């Protein structure tokens, strides 16, 4: 049986190639994801190890596992304490902070991309991650000197001797570029722009005064870092800790891997979709193979092969194909990850060079996914093959494609699946389960499978309707195409189902996007009455680890007559604990002006009490979820000041970035970083918004990183962000659609090879080549339209379910852009034409005589 299966694979290379292709693409996505993230991870592993190789020990503010670093700095006197420890060879202080270069046009370097980091220059080379190579200048010595990283210097064409302007959390400063440095051996740290200054100058620039953010230490020979760690640790003041270089490397790697892990999961989710789509195509192919070979299989049965042997024959065949295809998929994955890295470098992420890392895990996972999915998809056709009775070997006609009755049974099962899926989906969105994502994912997958089961029965009436315009205008070729699509409802349906998956996700996203856009307008209108807002444009309105708006910028607006009600919003990201939860954002707001610039539906006097009593105002949903009521005292833990008792002094209704508000005074008393996330304000009486805007812009002239936006600008920014996210999703889902299109091609190839004789006959009685091509093309379009229709319907449902769940978040309505849906149908037609290109050509080129006498 094994040999027979192998022979079959070799005998049908083209068919196998087409099947294999969907496996290759799916597997390449999986392996490419792993290879990409592994390569980055291992490259950085090397880089960090290299960078910290000279550092035996670092003294820094202690870190809380949950809330991060308690403070940014400690007093200079610690240096003396450390230096006095026996076994310390060299100890060098360090300060770091935000420093963003301006390019030669005065625009901040990096835009919305990677961070901008500033350091003090460490004179001891062993302790300095930055390195100035021969001929690239020297370290900064005076107040107005700067060293920057090579990648940034190359990209923005800075050379030693140039004047460089730099932004800090305050106004712009000017420096002379005296050196260009590398980070370890890399030109940059993953695209971050780096700059270094003389130590005391850096302390001043980053607002440290007479304090440091870290002390880096080398041990004398014969003292191990661990030993030194103990000794230094013993003399450190409270709130500081000593970590070894090794620990730091692994900490940094953990952080990196966390970020990469997220990318990994997201990409694997798309890989999963691609493979899911692929499995439909694989199943389809094997179904056709079994149908075409039913006579041959029956003969095997007639000469004594058991049911199991026949089944095995098909399964072995699937195994061979998947083995080869998965291996090719891994190779393609390597190419893809190399390509992605190249692309990211082209986008100035300057990832350090390093070999592609193919972990054994990558190969094992990719191979198993490819093989298991293929065999699983081939299982149903294999079971069908085993049911072929030996008598069919004697029959003249090809095995019929399954009775209507079995279609009904199949459909009933499908309806049950789809219903269960829909229930899971709705529960997942609305219920309070620990892992709603699994419910939603499982529900969606079940619905897809369910609909795929019902699709054959649906396809019979629906393809008739979809084909109607074609049949009316195009006559007999369209009619034949439609009948061909209906003739093999299972095959038509699974090709369409493969397309359905991608289309449904795209549809869902565009309905969500349209609805969000409509909502943003209302939300901004209703809850954000402020005429103007100011934020750091390099990051957008909010995001962790952002540069934000320096507090000094708020002061710069003090004497601007054209504006009033200036309200600062400060956000602490994941660094404040409320009872036992850590909200993503914890907000401090200017209590006295808050209600003029933001409308959150707060209880009367909430803001005033918040300010007067050091209280906290909480959103009603969070109140309910935790069973709190006003006047309760809750414990709020800050990284720097520890646990504080705050009284709940009021609530608010409407959705906001944070569920928790305290006054600016409370916030600044407990959070070290005083950076503002957003400044909101109104135009003063008698001034137009435009006048107020230009006055504000002028007052903020020293802060090119800040942008002043009126409502129109805000809408635009919000819409742009939605569109950006959408286009990313579309690019990834495009992959699923490509596989589906290949699936249609595959189906058509198989169906024309099955109908060779019929096509020959049609040609013999006068069908032209052009008509033959058209017939195949129409069939393809009909399948694609059917898939698009299923997908759009499903996507509309998914969007509805999700939006139902979001109603509590202030997202209301259900806005469908019919133009967009119309475009999807047009694209389906295009996809159909593309999918048909090759099969149509092949059908038209058939030798009439050979086709007619085809066995």
């Amino acid at each position, binding site marked *: 049986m094994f040999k027979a299966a192998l022979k079959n694979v070799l005998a049908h290379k083209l068919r196998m190639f087409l099947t294999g292709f969907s496996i290759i693409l799916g597997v390449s996505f999986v392996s490419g994801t792993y290879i990409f993230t592994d390569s980055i991870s291992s490259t950085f592993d090397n880089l960090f190890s290299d960078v910290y190789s000279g550092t035996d020990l670092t003294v820094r503010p202690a870190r809380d596992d949950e809330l991060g670093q308690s403070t940014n700095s400690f007093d200079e006197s610690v240096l003396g304490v450390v230096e006095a420890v026996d076994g310390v060879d060299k100890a060098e202080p360090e300060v770091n902070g935000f420093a963003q270069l301006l390019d030669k046009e005065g625009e901040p370097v990096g835009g919305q991309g990677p961070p901008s980091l500033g350091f003090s220059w460490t004179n001891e080379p062993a302790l300095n991650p930055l390195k100035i190579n021969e001929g690239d200048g020297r370290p900064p010595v005076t107040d107005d000197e700067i060293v920057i990283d090579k990648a940034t210097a190359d990209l923005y064409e800075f050379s030693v001797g140039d004047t460089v302007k730099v932004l800090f959390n305050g106004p712009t400063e000017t420096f002379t570029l005296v050196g260009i440095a590398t980070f370890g051996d890399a030109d940059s740290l993953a695209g971050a722009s780096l700059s270094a200054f003389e130590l005391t100058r850096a302390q001043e620039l980053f607002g440290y005064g007479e304090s440091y953010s870290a002390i880096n230490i080398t041990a004398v020979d014969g003292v191990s870092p661990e030993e030194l760690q103990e000794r230094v640790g013993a003399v450190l003041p409270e709130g500081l800790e000593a970590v070894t270089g090794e620990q730091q490397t692994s900490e940094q790697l953990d952080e990196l891997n966390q970020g990469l892990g997220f990318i990994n999961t997201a990409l694997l989710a798309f890989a999963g979709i691609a493979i899911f789509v692929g499995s439909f195509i694989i199943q389809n192919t094997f179904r056709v193979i079994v149908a075409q070979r039913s006579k041959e299989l029956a003969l095997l049965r007639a000469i004594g092969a058991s049911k199991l042997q026949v089944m095995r024959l098909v399964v072995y065949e699937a195994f061979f194909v998947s083995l080869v295809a998965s291996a090719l998929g891994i190779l393609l994955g390597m190419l893809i990850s190399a390509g992605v890295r190249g692309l990211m470098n082209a986008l100035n992420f300057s990832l350090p060079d390093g070999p592609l890392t193919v972990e054994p895990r990558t190969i094992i996972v990719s191979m198993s996914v490819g093989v298991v999915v293929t065999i699983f998809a081939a299982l149903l056709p294999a079971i069908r093959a085993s049911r072929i009775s030996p008598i069919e070997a004697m029959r003249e006609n090809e095995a019929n494609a399954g009775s209507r009755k079995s279609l009904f049974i199949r459909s009933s099962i499908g309806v049950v699946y789809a219903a269960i899926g829909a229930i899971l989906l709705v529960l997942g969105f609305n219920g309070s389960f620990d892992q709603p994502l699994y419910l939603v994912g499982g529900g969606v997958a079940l619905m897809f499978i369910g609909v795929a089961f019902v699709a054959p029965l649906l396809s019979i009436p629906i393809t008739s309707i979809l084909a109607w315009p074609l049949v009316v205008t195009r006559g007999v070729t369209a009619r034949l195409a439609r009948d061909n699509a209906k003739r093999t409802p299972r095959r038509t349906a699974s090709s369409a189902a493969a397309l359905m998956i991608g289309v449904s996700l795209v549809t869902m996203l565009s309905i969500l996007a349209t609805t969000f856009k409509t909502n943003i307008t209302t939300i901004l209108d209703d809850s954000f009455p402020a005429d103007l807002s100011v934020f750091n444009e390099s990051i957008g309105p909010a995001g962790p680890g952002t540069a934000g708006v320096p507090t000094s910028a708020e002061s710069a607006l003090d004497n601007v007559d054209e504006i009033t009600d200036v309200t600062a919003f400060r956000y602490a990201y994941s660094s404040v604990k409320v009872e036992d939860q850590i909200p993503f954002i914890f907000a401090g707001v200017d209590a006295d002006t808050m209600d003029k610039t933001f409308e959150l539906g707060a209880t009367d006097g909430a803001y005033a009490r918040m300010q007067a009593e050091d209280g906290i105002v909480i959103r009603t949903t969070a109140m309910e979820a935790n069973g709190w009521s006003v006047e309760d005292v809750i414990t709020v833990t800050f990284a720097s000041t520890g646990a504080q008792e705050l009284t709940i002094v009021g609530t608010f209704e409407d959705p906001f970035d944070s569920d928790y508000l305290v006054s600016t005074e409370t916030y600044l008393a407990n959070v070290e970083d005083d950076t503002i996330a957003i400044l909101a304000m109104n135009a003063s009486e008698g001034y137009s918004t435009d006048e107020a805007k230009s006055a504000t812009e002028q007052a903020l002239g020293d802060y090119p990183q800040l942008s002043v936006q009126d409502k129109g600008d805000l809408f635009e920014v919000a819409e742009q962000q939605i569109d950006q996210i959408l286009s990313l999703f579309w690019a990834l889902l495009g992959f699923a659609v490509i596989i589906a299109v290949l699936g249609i091609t595959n189906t058509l190839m198989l169906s024309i090879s099955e109908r060779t004789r019929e096509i020959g006959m049609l040609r013999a009685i*006068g069908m032209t080549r052009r008509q033959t091509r058209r017939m195949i093309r129409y069939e393809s379009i009909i399948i694609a339209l059917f898939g698009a229709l299923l997908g759009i319907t499903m996507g509309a449902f998914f969007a509805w379910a999700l939006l139902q769940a979001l109603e509590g978040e202030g997202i209301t309505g259900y806005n469908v852009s019919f133009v967009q849906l119309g475009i999807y149908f047009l694209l389906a037609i295009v996809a159909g034409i593309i999918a048909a290109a090759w099969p149509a050509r092949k059908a038209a080129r058939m030798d009439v005589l050979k086709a007619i006498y085809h066995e």
Partner: protein
Amino acid sequence: MAKTATKPRAKKQTHAIAASVQDGQKIYGKDTTEVRALDGVSVEFQQGVFTAIMGPSGSGKSTLLHCAAGLDKLSSGSAKIGDMELGRSKDKALTKLRREKVGFIFQSFNLVPTLTAKENILLPLSISGKKHDKKWFNDLVELLGIKDRLDHTPSELSGGQQQRVAVARALISRPEIIFADEPSGNLDSKSGNTLLSFLQTAAKKYGQAIVMVTHDANAAAYADEVLFLQDGKIVDKMTKPTSAKILDKLKKIGE
């Protein structure tokens, strides 16, 4: 756009030549593996004449049919339908020729399974975008005895009925010539006889040129004329054949 098929031709136009092959050679392979399927065959097929081509397997009878019908090309010599030289014609012209002047009947009926009998019969006209002549259609189905089966799909028809549908399909566009490849090969003898006598009638009554390849002497006996092929050459001709005479001849040729 749609146009009505030309009016029925006069009852008989004897001796008008519907198709011909002149000095036809067909060679497969090269050098040592060379096979001469046709080796200098010249033949004319006249309107109103039902011709049968016989010969042992490998005698070239099917090749002759295919080349005369324009489905295959001669290696040398000329094949014509009407005035058109087939060898020099492109696919487009050949397709047009098949639409207008040629009908085919195959051993394995080759009906489109998704279409009803009526739709199958009218398919050549639908493909060429012509309207059908209702009277001609009614005459045909009446004569072939498939009038009450018109709304059935092929799978609901017997083999004999299916082949009669195929015959109606071949005749519906009033071709100059019909090529039939073992048309009764898949039928029981009763259905076969019905079919063959219809072909006979079609030649007589409508002046239809019919060329049929068969290895069945009984079938060939329905023809007006029988050609005997051997090793790619026409070795004999017989008019007014009977199955006994044919069998006798075949024996002489020696299988």
